[in-house]
């Protein structure tokens, strides 16, 4: 999809004004964090597992070339094939070529953020192949022709009424006046509609939560079982995965799996964790005849050795989205591309460019919740600061903004001047605002006062109180 991260400020206003989105986000705000808290509360070793998870990922990234080559060798030994793709276009071409080689008409898909990243569905459709999303959330947004708004719950921005509308519009073979008020009914309808697609598909495409170097396996984690039907029933299974998904061994994968579901949905373990290795074996009564892995770089290798390398530890659990006050207020579509929330604010500029996505790392209060809940302790706020620095250095931000920052730096690095200026400013503001005790608007601060009042300063400043306290201590 084409990024629209450039229009983030306008997207935010649209999100805040959307009553359906606000109701849907209200459900998400409480549900995910509560369930995560309960799950990790039951596992005393969780903190230690986080440290080990981080160490596994760091070790793997430090030897990424070795593990990828070993992985490829083992995929081949198991009868599969790895297709290396430098960018989205190469990945799309590889998938299309495999689909064409078997004359595929219908392709079922498990949920894959990498497939979203490379805009695979559009490419398949343009080439006469019908992709059918089978994850319920992905299916809903495919019917609505919109991108996912969350990396594990793609339709989290919708309420059941919108889903019912989408189903009525798409499933024209069913009675138009059928009742669709219950969530249960909607799920049943999707199950009934999608089952024949699973059976008819020529190719099944899934993502991967992990790739295992030791065995040449791909691992998917799902709750619906759609990923398993997608990769078991068709003749061909294609995995699209980015190269940082690799881990050395199944033991390493197990440690990360203990972190993943708890951080994501607050489950002890997802319903289905499936480890796939090559195509069906001689004598196997089912399973795909071909197994392909399209291994995508798309700018990730350039992050190695730099200040954004830690981002490659990301498990895509979405805990940072679920705990982010900005995401909770505006939803995922505002971010304008595939990856929203704090992880998107760091990853999107790396993948689509800072010129396009420069707003995203600025959309943070730096409250730090994202880093606190990250299962592999990615320093997301620090990396957003790195992007802001780069944006400043590369002169990508507006002139007024940069001059303001420059003036601020000039003032803040001169303490006596700073104290004098702020003392005077707070006295003036305090005097002007003495009637109401707050300001509805202030010159140069319209952006801030648009959504809230500014309290008028009262009494003395912290600095002068502190200085007096210090003097009093000395006298004692």
């Amino acid at each position: 999809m084409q990024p629209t991260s450039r229009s983030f400020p306008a997207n935010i206003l649209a999100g805040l004004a959307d009553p359906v989105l606000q109701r849907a986000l209200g459900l998400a705000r409480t549900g995910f964090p509560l369930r995560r808290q309960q799950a990790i509360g039951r596992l005393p070793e969780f903190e230690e597992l986080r440290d080990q998870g981080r160490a596994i990922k760091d070790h793997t990234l430090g030897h990424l070339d070795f593990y990828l080559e070993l992985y490829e060798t083992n995929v081949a030994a198991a009868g599969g094939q790895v297709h290396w793709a430098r960018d989205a276009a190469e990945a799309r071409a590889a998938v299309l070529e495999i689909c064409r080689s078997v004359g595929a008409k219908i392709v079922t898909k498990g949920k894959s953020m990498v497939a979203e990243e490379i805009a695979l569905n559009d490419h398949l459709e343009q080439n006469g192949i019908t992709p059918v999303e089978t994850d319920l959330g992905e299916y809903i947004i495919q019917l609505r022709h919109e991108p996912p708004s969350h990396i594990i719950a793609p339709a989290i921005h919708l309420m059941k009424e919108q889903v019912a509308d989408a189903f009525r519009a798409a499933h024209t073979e069913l009675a138009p006046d059928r009742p669709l008020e219950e969530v249960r009914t909607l799920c049943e309808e999707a199950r009934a509609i999608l089952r024949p697609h699973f059976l008819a598909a020529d190719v099944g495409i899934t993502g991967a939560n992990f790739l295992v170097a030791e065995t040449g396996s791909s691992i998917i984690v799902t709750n619906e079982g759609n990923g398993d039907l997608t990769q078991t029933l068709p003749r061909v299974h294609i995995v699209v995965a980015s190269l940082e998904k690799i881990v050395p061994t199944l033991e390493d994968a197990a440690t990360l799996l203990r972190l993943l579901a708890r951080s994501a949905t607050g489950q002890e373990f997802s319903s289905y964790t499936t480890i796939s290795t090559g195509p069906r074996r001689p004598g196997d009564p089912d399973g795909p005849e071909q197994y392909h892995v399209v291994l995508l770089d798309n700018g990730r290798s350039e992050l190695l050795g730099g200040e954004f390398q830690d981002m490659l530890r990301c498990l895509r659990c979405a805990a940072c989205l679920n705990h982010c006050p900005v995401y909770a207020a505006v939803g995922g579509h505002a971010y304008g591309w595939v990856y929203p929330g704090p992880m998107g604010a760091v990853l999107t500029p790396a993948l689509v460019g800072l010129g396009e996505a420069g707003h995203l790392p600025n959309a943070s209060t730096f409250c730090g919740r994202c880093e606190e809940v990250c299962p592999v302790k990615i320093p997301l706020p620090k990396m957003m600061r790195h992007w802001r620095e780069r944006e400043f250095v590369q002169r990508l931000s507006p002139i007024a903004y940069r001059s303001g920052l420059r003036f601020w730096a000039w003032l803040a690095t001169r303490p006596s001047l700073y104290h004098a200026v702020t003392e005077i400013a707070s006295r003036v503001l305090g005097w002007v605002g003495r009637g109401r005790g707050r300001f509805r608007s202030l010159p140069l601060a319209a952006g801030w006062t648009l959504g809230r009042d500014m309290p008028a300063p009262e009494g003395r400043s912290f600095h002068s109180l502190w200085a007096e306290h210090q003097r009093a201590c000395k006298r004692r």
Partner: protein
Amino acid sequence: MSAARDDILAGIRRGLRRGPLPAATAAGLAERISAHRRNLIPARAAALDHSARIDLFVAMAEEVQTTVARVTSGDAVPAEVARYLAAENLPAELVMAPDPSLDTIPWAARPLLSIRRGRAEPGDAVSLTPCLAAIAETGTLLLASGADSPTTLNFLPDTHIVVLRAGDVVASYEDGFDLVRARSVAGPEGWPRTLNLITGPSRTGDIEQRIQLGAHGPRRLHIVLVDEPEVAANGPPAR
């Protein structure tokens, strides 16, 4: 595509500021892999004796809406299966894995139970399979695909019944992986195509985060746990 491969690997090495790994370092990494070194295993299941571990497995499985019936011998399995199907108002008809480990169960004692052996087909309502192991930590079943163990049985039918021997309950995923390694000939070519770790029936929370069972996979997962005393006594030791 090999140009892409070379470019990507070169880019990785550029980022890491080094060339290909020295042979000694690579040998060390290969050694790390073949040692199957375990990371931290939570004490929750690993610290328990075998019988407490089975109880934990049952409790964790039931927490995620798996139903569990405990019987004291393989002979009691057909009656339990028939009872379950009747109680759930399901037809007494099932498709069963061709796995020989199920052959010792006296199915003929229940002639009204209609059984086909093989992979699942679209119309099949109920499947029955054994499993390779059960993981107490999270109430998870481990199934490995193979000639006798079709993967479709685990996903296509609405109801999946699993016969679990109490001796096959282990503590952790890692214990399960060791069992797979012990069965497979060395190397990835001996590894099963599919390993399924199954924790409860299929579910989704994609609409308003309200959990619904039976999204695309089985709506019901029922375990018949066979507590054969002599097997339990010889169960795998704690690791």
